[in-house]
Each structure stands twice: as C-alpha cells, then as structure tokens.
C-alpha cells in the first residue's frame, strides 16, 4: 500500500462519496441543436462506508447516467463528485485515476456481454489484480483470485477460474463480475441492474451475496435498479429518481412505509406481489416524462393527481419530510406537521 492511499484514507470524514449538484445533459442532433436531454439534474446524494444505497427509477430516469458519472465514463455538465473529499473529475494523474477506479469499480447489467468470450474467466480477475495491485507476486495473484471467487460463491474456485464464459450460467457470470470488482479491494461497488437479466430463482442468490459482501468485505454498494422490492431487500437507503431528478430519499423502510412523493406512491401501488391482494388501480398509464428541454416545474406534474399551479412554475427541491427523509414535492406534508396536526386533533 503506498503512502498516497494511506493519506487518502485518513481524509475520510463523513460520507465515502458525495455528489454536489451533479448534472449531465446530452445535446441531441447537431452541434447547434437546441434540443437538450436532461439525463440527470442537480443530484445531491451521499453513500457512507458499509452502506448499500439503492437508486430506484424507471427506464430513462437517469439512473444509469448517474452510475456512468460516478464511474467516470461521462464528465458532468455541472456539479461534482467527491470521493473521500477529493473531486473525482479533477483527478488527472494515472496513479490517481487507477486509485479511484480501483476503489470504485463497476458491475454491469448484462453478464452475457460484459465478458470477453475468448478468454477464460480468470483473465479478467488476473488482469485487474495485475493492474491495480502490482505488488502481488504471480502466485499470490492466483491465490487472491481464488479467494475472491470463493467469496462470491463460485466454488471450487480452482475449476471455476478455468472456465470460459459460455460454460457458465447467467448467475455465475454475474458472480464473476462481482469477483472482478472485489479483486481490486474496492470500497464502493457500482452495481448497475446486476440482477435484472437473471431468472428469479437465481436473483435471490445474487442479492444475498451483495448483502454478505458488505458484511465480509466492508464495501459499500450503489445498487441501481428498477425493482423497488429488491431494493427493499438489500438496501439501507433508497433514492428514487424520476426524469433525471431525485424525488425522494431516505432509509428504506421509512420511504416504503411512508412514501411522500406521489411518484413513489404510484410506483409502490403498481408493484405486483404474488401473495398480496391487488392494490386499487390508478388511471395512470405509465407514459414516460419529457426530459428534452423540460423547462421549469415539477416533471411529474402531468401525471400527478395532486398537482397545483405552483408545480408548473417552480421546480420542487428536496426538502425534509422527517429526520432523514426528503422529498421533492410542493404538496407533500412533512411527518412532523402530520404528527402535529394529529396531536392537535387528539387534544
């Protein structure tokens, strides 16, 4: 471990990763086009050590753009990402970039296309070890590869390392994805829909593995998903995104039991459950929001049953609904107010 890493670790005060006004726009059409797609706008989120945060939203809500911003695939249009207090997008030297990418690796959605089919699965892990942990001897590398394969439940690791991707099932490949990430001794794994391509009977295993990685390897995980039920299963905290904006965030159980934003409420009512009675059906047909030149105002207002005039004029910002619970809605009433009203009524 070099001295830089140590000093980096000592800087860690507060959250592991923090975004400030993180914004990414894409220009559609030619250079002078006026059509701007607002993929992510003014995102402020934090991820603490050993925390699993779920970023939940439908397709097109900007959640993958967030992952790519954090993984430095995209540069932000505006705003910043701070990792252990350092601004990520101003890292320049090869050493710093390697350091960040080693601490914050990504696991991809599609385990079928995320691996090179002509190499054995050991290749990816060994390469990561060589690149990010050059101090290891070849024999140690092999040992370490076996250790991470065991950790993600691919055993016997010795045999598994020799397989080609086509010899593995989707669930096993996704475990290889996590093993590759683990090999670099990460602090935060960015997992972009890691279970959405897998069969239901396999998903539970991967979700359980994510939870145990946090326990055993002390990593934080950003779990990006459209499936709010699986988010509830693994995550400590949930951030709900809609049309590029965070509309609600808070501890998982608080958000799910007392959803404040009308979109979160709609999302929860639409989730099917095999063993629950059907919730009443709303008239909403699930039409996607406008994210090209969206203008001012709440982006959910066209679908919102509670929309007031203000919603069209002023973009709602996240404001406290409870001690650690925020929602971006003009109409939502904070917990304390409700409690206060209830108290007056009781009195």
């Amino acid at each position: 471990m070099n001295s830089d890493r140590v000093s980096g670790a000592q800087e860690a005060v507060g959250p592991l990763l923090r975004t400030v006004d993180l914004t990414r726009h894409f220009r559609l059409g030619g250079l002078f086009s006026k059509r701007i797609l607002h993929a992510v706008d003014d995102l402020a989120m934090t991820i603490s050590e050993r925390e699993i945060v779920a970023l939940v939203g439908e397709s097109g809500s900007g959640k993958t753009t967030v992952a790519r911003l954090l993984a430095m695939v995209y540069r932000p249009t505006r705003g910043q990402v701070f990792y252990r207090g350092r601004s990520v997008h101003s890292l320049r030297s090869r050493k710093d970039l390697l350091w960040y990418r080693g601490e914050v690796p990504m696991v991809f959605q599609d385990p079928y296309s995320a691996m090179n089919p002509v190499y054995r699965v050991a290749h990816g892990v060994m390469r990561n070890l060589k690149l990010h942990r050059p101090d290891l001897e070849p024999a140690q590398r092999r040992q370490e590869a076996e250790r991470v394969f065991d950790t993600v439940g691919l055993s016997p690791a010795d045999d598994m390392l020799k397989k080609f991707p086509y010899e593995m099932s989707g669930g096993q490949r996704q475990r290889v994805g996590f093993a590759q990430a683990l090999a670099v001794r990460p602090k935060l794994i960015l997992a972009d829909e890691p279970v959405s391509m897998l069969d239901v009977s396999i998903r539970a295993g991967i979700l359980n593995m994510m939870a145990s990685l946090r326990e055993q390897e002390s990593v934080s995980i950003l779990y990006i998903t459209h499936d709010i039920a699986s988010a509830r299963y693994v995550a400590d905290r949930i951030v709900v995104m809609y049309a590029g904006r965070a509309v609600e965030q808070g501890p998982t159980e608080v958000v799910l039991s007392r959803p404040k934003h009308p979109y979160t409420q709609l999302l929860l009512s639409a989730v099917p459950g095999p063993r629950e009675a059907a919730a009443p059906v709303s008239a909403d047909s699930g039409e996607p929001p406008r994210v090209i030149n969206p203008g001012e105002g709440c982006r959910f207002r066209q679908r919102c049953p509670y929309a007031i005039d203000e919603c069209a004029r002023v973009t709602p910002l996240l404001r406290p609904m409870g001690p650690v619970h925020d929602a971006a809605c003009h109409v939502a009433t904070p917990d304390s107010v409700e409690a206060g009203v209830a108290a007056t009524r009781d009195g």
Partner: protein
Amino acid sequence: MPELLLEVDDLSVSYLTETADIRAVEGVSLSLRSGEFLGIVGESGCGKSTLLFAIAQLLSPPAEVVSGRVQFKGKDLVTLTEGELRHVRWRDYSVVMQSAMNALNPMKSIAAQLADTIRAHTRMTSDAIRTRSAEVLHLVGIDAAHLESYPHQLSGGMRQRAMIAMALLFTPQLVIMDEPTSALDVVAQRSLMTKIKELQTELGFAVIFVTHDMSLIAHYSDRVMVMYAGQVAEIGETDSVFGRPLHPYSKGLLDAFPSIRGPRRPLTGIPGTPPDLARPPAGCRFQPRCSEAMPACSTIRPELYVVGSSDVRCLLYAEEQRNAV
C-alpha cells in the same frame, strides 16, 4: 361451463441439431376453455416460448413437433398445411410477441402495418381498413391520431398496445401472449395488464399468457401452469397454486420474490441452475436442485399426480394419489 377451445395433448418439441436432440417441450397436455386466462410461468430455457410457438404453429427448423396434437376448434393444427393455417391464423388465434420494439417495422406507420395484416387475411376496402384500424387502436386506448405515427414516436407501452391492437383486428377467440410486458416499467406494466383483462372481459377471448414473472399474473389468470425443464411441473387454479403451491419448484419460485409489504424475510432462491436439456438428469428433472428430494427422486420419473384441483409432477404426491384411489 364454456366450451373447450384448445386442447394440447402430449405435445413434444425437439430442436434437432447434428449432435443432439434437445427436447425443449416434453409431453405437455393442457386444455383451455373459451374466455379463459391461462398463465404459463417458468425460467428462461424451460420451454415456455417453444411451447407457445408450437401451439401457434410458428416453429421453424431446427425445432420440430415430434409428437402430440394441438386441437383447436376441432382441427389439429399440427397436421394443417401452411395454406390451411392461413385461414385460421390471426382470424381465430393471434400472437403478441415479446418485444414490440422488434416486432413492429420501424419503416412503416402504424396504419400501414395494421393494413398489411388485414390485407394478408381478408379483402377489405381502404375505407373499411382505416375504420377498423382506428377502432382497434381505440380499444387499446391509443388515439386514432397515432395511425400516422411510426413506432419510434410511440412509448414502449404504446407500442406494446399497438401490437395488441393488431392481434385483435379480427376479434380472435384466442390471443397468445409471449411476455408482452417484460420490457416495460412497473407502472406501464400494471396499466397494460389491466387493459388486457378489460379487453378480455369485454370481447371474451381466451388468453395464454407466458411470463417469467409469477407475481404478474397472480391477479389476472384463472389457471396457472408452472413449467420446468420442458415439462409441466404443476398446473392448477391460480388461487391454489399461489395460496398452496405443491411442487417444491413452485414454492421456490414464490419464495424467490422479495416483497415490498409485510415483514422482510430472508430469500432463499433456488440453488443450482436449470438442467441442460440435451442431457436431462435421471428421474425427476428438478431433483438436483430440490430441497425435498428423496432417494427415489433420482431414479423414478414422476408423472403428473392429481392433488385437489391441481396436477403436480412430484413424487411427494404419489402416495397421496394412491390413497385417494
């Protein structure tokens, strides 16, 4: 009781390759009455889509029906020629494919694609075609203005609705759906399911609905069939399959879903992976992954045993059946 519309009898489908005979569907029997909603659930590779293609007679080589019958309105679809099928297909039964993104032609407007379908199966004046197209779009909740739209101008949910509109052009008695909602977001998915159910009640067609998501059909289907490794694992009334699943695989599937309501319980999932159909395990096909497997399971191939209103392929119930007889 409504009349019997479709009867699949001991249907087997193989993918014949140079080296192997992969039996994707083995000995599946099922019956469907007019206006009934049958859900077929299973994981990828369990043969559910192959079964559906076999019923609709849409298989192409190397897939082939090796035995069994598909009796639809008194005719065995397996023995019909392509020419004879043309009179039945789309008029009496239609198919909604999984991905509307790929199933619609990106170069043609919705109106042109609906007109193509109509012209392929009947003679109609342009005016009549236009009227009928507008009617079916209206049925699925799309404004007739979208007749001139191209697929890329519609949202995923609307495209899938347009596919359903196309399937309803001739008001068929059976609509076969292959995961029509799997590419949609939960809210759009919910809205589409509600629409399908509404249309079914209104027009009275029967539905075979294939999905990997068991929770999706819980509130919509009359009966559920659970498939595993090409075979029927369990088939029964929706309420009993969800309320009291019999096959260890059905139980496992139900327990694999995290829930958003009620207490958080640990999920177990199902260990292992589905078998390679070129070399299915001896005895019960689920036995290598089963938590309730007995020694007999690795040697005896279980049949479908009748338990209450369900049929289940599991040796746990062999005894029960014998006692009942």
